[in-house]
């Protein structure tokens, strides 16, 4: 079956847009083909800085013919209805319609519509221009003389030519005939801008890709990435260094070149007095170059690797020296910033925060820092941190936001604070907290473990959460502009990974104290707690654990010790995986179901102790005894926070419950006996609540 080759050749497409654009092109064309009844065998899209390309192979030559019967109005129906029917079906006269007899409803007209399948190349000629005109670029533009006319084409940058061919491998393919805004689809493209700018005529994907390669264009982004990475690794290795790999940079650089050539340059070793991270940020962000390190020390070397877009006539000498000049100038700036920063103590920067608004409803940064200081000091004893150190750390933790280096490279916030704090002789744990208190930033990020960092990290996140809750800026749907979900997950991980005992309700209440806008002191902490419960569920689900158990535990009420919640959930999960657990859950559910039916029937509940005098079957007595034992043993185990033990106690309930349902008829004819048995069922439910609310558990 024939293949389609499509290329859209333009001026330079922003690197960050290329991958999605290739994907969009593939999706839009193949979706349209399928919608037109043309099922294809495979499709692949590519992007370079100057072109989007798509190959779709194994498309049928024609659509299949369509036959459709359409039912029309009653024979002898109103003329308007008949005229409408003719118009809708394209029939010339009503005599061309069939008549179908229906014994109940009478005779109806039926139109037989035959739609012969069209040639695929004609379908393509129709759908491709529409796709090009409606292509979802994040930002697009008009250009040239045609931009004066309304309805002129928008593209990411000026579009110059289009290839669209369709045909069999063995034959000369046909050009799909269409024109978009004066650009006629054809078979011509162009090679590398500098090394092979001449026009190239192509027929199909295989010769297209090969001819481009001969014209110094590597079509496949992955091939460019592989080449850059392995060349860069080799350049580094040859000099006894190791490439500092950087996927984001690699993706970007591969989108800036059609013919990657890795080259190594160096900079003055005196710049190595700047922290490695600052050197890397300077070279990476501004110059889009890689850095290399000494594998023995792990420290950066005074080398960098650039990716040129050309095999230069002089082997790249001029290119390397040009890049070295720019990097020298950039590093001089960075060194100047770093040295200037070191001249000012962190605390003397703080008064400036009086002028900086954190959020218009939550006051200035200075006010926020004071809140975090107080909260960190309060949390310190609960997490085993020195109160004074926690306070000092919180006092300084944000100061680096006002430094030159962080102004230039915001991603270095925290890290620079650590370096500057160390330089001014702060205690190591205080300095470390500048960096660590932002952590964990996401599910994959490291969780700090030093108690001082933990105290400040918790204070920072709790202040954020309480603050935005108080002004009612909670996350909704996909919108979470203040990253509150991440903050809550951070709190959970800080507590759980460090096995901390921190009642979250108290902490939330305390966090509210200093806020300029207080929020509802009654409702807010509970609201926040249920937000934590939701986050915990999401986290457990992401880890592949059962999230319904979180509800089963929170539903007990008063559960604001997240560590205990997690432990209880874990123990419960293990228990429910055992046969005892499964059967007990089934038994409890059965008891609950019977109860809710009978409660509804009698319009009452069956609370209160069962009367031992009314038991007349051994299974009743055995169950009552088991419940008593289990209740006291389970609560004792829960008191000791030994949830595994509490669960194994629960297991004892199972044979008694099974036997009870096996032998005892709950709805006894004698009302008193029935009532007593229902009370007993209620006690099963009550007993299990020592560990969890079983009714919230799925399955």
């Amino acid at each position: 079956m024939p293949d389609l080759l499509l290329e859209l050749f333009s001026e330079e497409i922003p690197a960050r847009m290329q991958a999605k654009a290739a994907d969009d092109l593939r999706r839009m064309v193949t979706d349209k083909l399928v919608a037109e009844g043309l099922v294809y065998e495979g499709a692949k899209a590519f992007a370079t800085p100057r072109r989007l390309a798509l190959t779709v192979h194994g498309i049928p030559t024609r659509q299949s013919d369509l036959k459709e019967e359409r039912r029309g109005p009653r024979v002898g129906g109103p003329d308007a209805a008949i005229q409408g029917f003719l118009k809708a079906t394209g029939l010339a006269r009503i005599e061309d319609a069939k008549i179908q007899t229906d014994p109940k409803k009478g005779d109806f007209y039926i139109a037989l519509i035959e739609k012969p399948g069209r040639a695929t190349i004609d379908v393509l000629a129709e759908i491709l221009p529409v796709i090009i005109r409606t292509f979802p670029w994040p930002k697009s533009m008009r250009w040239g003389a045609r931009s004066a006319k309304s309805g002129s084409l928008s593209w990411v940058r000026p579009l110059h030519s289009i290839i669209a061919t369709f045909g069999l491998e063995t034959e000369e393919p046909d050009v799909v005939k269409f024109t978009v805004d004066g650009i006629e689809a054809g078979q011509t493209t162009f090679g590398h801008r500098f090394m092979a700018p001449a026009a190239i005529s192509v027929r199909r994907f295989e010769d297209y890709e090969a001819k481009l390669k001969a014209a110094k264009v590597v079509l496949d982004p992955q091939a460019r990435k592989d080449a850059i990475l392995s060349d860069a690794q080799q350049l580094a290795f040859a000099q006894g260094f190791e490439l500092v790999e950087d996927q984001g940079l690699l993706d970007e650089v591969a989108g800036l070149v059609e013919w990657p050539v890795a080259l190594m340059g160096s900079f003055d070793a005196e710049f190595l007095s700047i922290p490695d991270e600052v050197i890397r940020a300077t070279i990476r962000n501004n110059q889009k170059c890689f850095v290399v390190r000494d594998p023995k020390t792990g420290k950066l070397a005074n080398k960098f690797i650039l990716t040129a877009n050309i095999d230069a006539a002089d082997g790249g000498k001029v290119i390397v020296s040009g890049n070295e000049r720019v990097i020298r100038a950039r590093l001089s700036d960075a060194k100047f910033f770093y040295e200037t920063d070191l001249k000012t103590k962190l605390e003397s920067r703080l008064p400036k925060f009086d002028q900086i608004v954190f959020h218009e409803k939550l006051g200035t940064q200075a006010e926020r820092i004071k809140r975090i200081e107080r909260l960190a000091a309060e949390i310190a004893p609960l997490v085993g941190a020195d109160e004074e150190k926690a306070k000092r750390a919180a006092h300084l933790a944000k100061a680096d936001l006002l430094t030159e280096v962080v102004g230039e490279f915001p991603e270095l916030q925290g890290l620079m604070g650590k370096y500057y704090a160390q330089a001014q002789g702060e205690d190591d744990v205080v300095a470390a907290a500048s960096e660590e208190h932002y952590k964990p930033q996401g599910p994959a990020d490291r969780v700090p473990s030093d108690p001082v960092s933990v105290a400040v990290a918790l204070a920072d996140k709790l202040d954020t959460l309480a603050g935005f809750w108080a002004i009612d800026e909670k996350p909704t749907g996909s919108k979470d502009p203040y990253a509150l979900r991440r903050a809550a997950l951070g709190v959970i991980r800080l507590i759980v990974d460090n096995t901390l005992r921190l009642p979250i309700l108290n902490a939330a209440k305390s966090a509210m104290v200093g806020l300029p806008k207080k929020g509802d002191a009654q409702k807010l902490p509970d609201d926040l707690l249920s937000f934590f419960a939701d986050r915990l569920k999401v986290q457990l689900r992401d880890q592949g654990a059962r999230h319904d158990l979180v509800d089963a535990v929170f539903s007990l009420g008063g559960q604001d010790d997240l560590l205990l919640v997690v432990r209880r959930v874990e123990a419960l999960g293990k228990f429910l995986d055992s046969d005892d657990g499964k059967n007990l859950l089934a038994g409890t559910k059965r008891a609950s179901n019977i109860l809710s039916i009978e409660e509804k029937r009698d319009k009452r509940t069956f609370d209160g102790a069962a009367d031992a005098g009314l038991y007349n079957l051994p299974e009743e007595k055995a169950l009552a005894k088991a419940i008593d034992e289990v209740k006291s043993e389970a609560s004792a185990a829960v008191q000791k926070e030994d949830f595994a033990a509490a669960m194994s106690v629960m297991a004892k309930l199972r044979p008694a419950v099974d036997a009870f349902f096996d032998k005892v008829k709950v709805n006894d004819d004698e009302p008193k006996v029935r009532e007593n048995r229902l009370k007993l069922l209620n006690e099963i439910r009550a007993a299990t609540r020592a560990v969890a609310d079983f009714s919230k558990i799925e399955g």
Partner: protein
Amino acid sequence: MDALPAHMRPERSFQGFILALQRFWAEQGCVILQPYDMEMGAGTFHPATTLRALGPKRWNAAYVQPSRRPKDGRYGENPNRLQHYYQFQVIMKPSPSNLQDLYLKSLAAIGIDSSVHDIRFVEDDWESPTLGAWGLGWECWCDGMEVSQFTYFQQVAGVECSPVSGELTYGLERLAMYVQGVDRVYDLNFNGREGAEKVTYGDVFLQAEQEYSRHNFEHADTAMLFEQFRMAEEACRKYLAAGWREGGNQKEHLMALPAYDQCIKASHVFNLLDARGVISVTERQSYIMRVRELAKACGEAWIHTETGRAA
């Protein structure tokens, strides 16, 4: 280029470099203008770009524009930051389909050979909040250094460009430093002579950088500048109001250019006030908005003038 005397070669002298660019763009059919006689932050503010980018008529021009960035003053101590520098500006309306090629040829004309240099077009979306203008294009990189800006104007002074113009801006000092191989702007050879006859960029501008840095950061009279801003704003509005005429069956404007001068003035005065640090963060936004309102009103007036409107 061999016909040129050595001192006029673009890699030898700053003035030869500028002349080479002018000659190149003159050959592409551009009118070569002289700098606008007002202080402005960038060549884009020149009415030959801002106003001429509007309306349907063809327009191809190139010129040098001294650009004032009061905040970038460094008392002559930074090797490449200046509060006064030269931009070379090209505008072509409508943007020709070979504008990228023309740009690359212009680099060749000033001695940048694309077979040994790594020239790149790196995404850069241009926006001027004060001019109510935006466009898409690139920073042009040569061996990792940004040497030009390349923009397809989509909107200027709040008016949709129809047709779109292509705008090129060359940072002349930076490019010339690269071509001459010097690391300090003040070491640029200005006149291409050697020995006693040699005049450097520093000979011409170092004292000015020092004096203007003192002025911009320490002494510029802020009370006067606030007043000047207010006066320029008022004058701009007054001239705009006075310029409208109901002629025949269409509105026309007779004083868009003088009104726009006052907008340029207000913008530069704002930059000076900003350098003096007397405008707070919140006020800053409102000043930018005020200049933009003037620019938009001037753009609206311009498209009702003889040159700015549809034929």
